[in-house]
């Protein structure tokens, strides 16, 4: 199975980001297995033949236990769609007793029963549970053109269900359709107003740039050089303090999880605590935008 991504063949001369501290554990729990097939998905996830396999629950459990020993600050679950994983609730229950935990989801599998489970989990835990629901536009047609028919309504239902149970979902949007609006408002304000109009009194919104990756990958993208990084604080890049456990080992960042060039260890977390190569075209986006995949 080939990787549907632009992948340089060599990482030998790329600049590196130093490993400063271990703060964030990402768990790529479902690999690229997803019930949606979004046009801009950074790892080309979808319902058929995931190129990156889901993780066995025991691999995730071992990573959480090792991360606790190493003093992890926060844990994130991503995919694919994490709620497709049969053990997701048990894994969240373990993670949330260890550290504040976030799940990145498209929201389509969060029905009332799942929202009840998540609310019970959040109430019983010492740490905060954050649910990040992806939505790319406040307009149904524009959103579903990117994310697939029916995705908008299901995500809105999930946001409402979580809100009703006292969870405060973080709505995460990419800038993929931002140029299609001409009302003068920025995306951030538009999403906040949209959520408030639906009775969400504490709207939480995170805007992400679009990466030329996955289904948007184009050959020949520029990569970083040492000259580009002169005077730049590489400690601000998330690969200086985050590690991702995915099928095949431990990787430098969630965007590049599964790519051999970003793999830092084939075993444990601690073995991955070394410089990360900034070899990929997507490293340019992190460098230029200062973005982080974290909540804040």
């Amino acid at each position, binding site marked *: 199975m080939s990787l549907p991504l632009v992948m340089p063949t060599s990482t030998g001369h790329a600049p590196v980001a130093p490993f400063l*501290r271990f703060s964030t554990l990402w768990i790529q729990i479902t690999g690229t297995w997803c019930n949606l097939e979004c046009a801009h998905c950074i790892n080309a996830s979808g319902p058929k033949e995931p190129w990156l396999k889901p993780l066995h629950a025991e691999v995730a459990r071992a990573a959480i236990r090792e991360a*606790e*020993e*190493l*003093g*992890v*600050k*926060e844990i994130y679950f991503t995919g694919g769609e994490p709620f497709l994983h049969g053990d997701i609730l048990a894994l969240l229950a373990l993670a949330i007793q*260890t*550290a*504040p935990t976030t799940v990145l989801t498209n929201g389509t599998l969060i029905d009332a029963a799942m929202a009840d489970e998540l609310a019970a989990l*959040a109430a019983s835990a*010492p*740490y*905060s*549970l*954050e649910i990040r629901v992806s939505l790319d536009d406040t307009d149904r047609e524009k959103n579903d053109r990117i994310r697939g028919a029916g995705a908008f309504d299901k995500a809105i239902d999930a946001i409402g269900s979580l809100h009703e149970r*006292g*969870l*405060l979902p973080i709505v995460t949007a990419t800038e993929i359709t931002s140029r299609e609006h001409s009302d003068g408002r*920025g995306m*951030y304000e538009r999403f*906040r107003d949209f959520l408030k109009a639906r009775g969400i*009194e*504490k709207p*939480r919104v995170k805007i992400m740039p679009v990466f030329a990756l996955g289904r948007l990958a184009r050959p020949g993208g520029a990569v970083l050089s040492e000259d580009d990084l002169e005077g730049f604080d590489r400690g601000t890049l998330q690969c200086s303090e985050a590690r991702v456990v995915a099928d095949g080992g431990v990787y430098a960042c969630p965007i590049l999880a599964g790519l051999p060039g970003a793999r830092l260890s084939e075993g444990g977390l601690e073995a991955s605590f070394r410089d990360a190569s900034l070899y990929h075209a997507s490293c340019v986006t992190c460098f230029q935008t200062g973005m*982080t995949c974290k909540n*804040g």
Partner: protein
Amino acid sequence: MQERIAEYRRIAVFGGVYNNALALHATLEDARRRDVEAVFCLGDMGGFGPHPDRVFPLLKGSGVLAIQGNYDESLAQGKTDCGCGYTDPRDNHFARISYEYTFANTSAENKQWLGALPAHRRIRLGAHRVLMCHGSPRVINEFLWESATPTGLLRRFVREAETDVLLCTHTGIKWHRALPTGGHAVNVGVIGRPENDGSTNVWYTILTAGPDLAVEFVPVHYDFETLARQMDQEGLPPEFSETVRTGWWTTCLENLPSKERSRGKF
């Protein structure tokens, strides 16, 4: 050369003065009445409130032993940003207004004083080794919220810093956790703005040595109406004075973890 570590039995500690000279005065008076041997401040003298230069005579005159917060570092180094560590556009909007006002109204002499403050302090409270920092021992603006700070991380902090007690501030909401391994982590709170619980008072902390460490959070009531009026007169955003008058945060709250955010009004 070995650093000389001062030893105490009972101290007062606060963070985040945020230009609130009225609360600072009330806090110092209260601490004096409670028989403490020394008063410590964990940084962020500026931001949010009115008339930044009014807090410095109180801090200096009362012999407060301070460390540097991110705000102090930014002011001293002439940075264009407060370095609070916000990522949300709305948080950054209000943080910018607050910083530009404070920067313009803090004297060169006081900026220099801030620049001379240490990043950390170590003391002993009886048998307990204590490390004071602003955000965390590793990063000056790291947010250590109660619901977002794992015990495993705190264990690592105290082990690596070779301390028994870790004191921090920066978030604006106090908490205390006794660690299973025997140490303590205390976020001492701030005296510059209320705690997002609908009460107008602010909080500081008294620590007393003993067989175990005694941690007491002390509420401070002050003339918040006068402060709010001064903020309005200075042209600071009405959202700021609303917080002072109501005890609910209206700005710089997008980075709150969900448990802390749920407890607030906004």
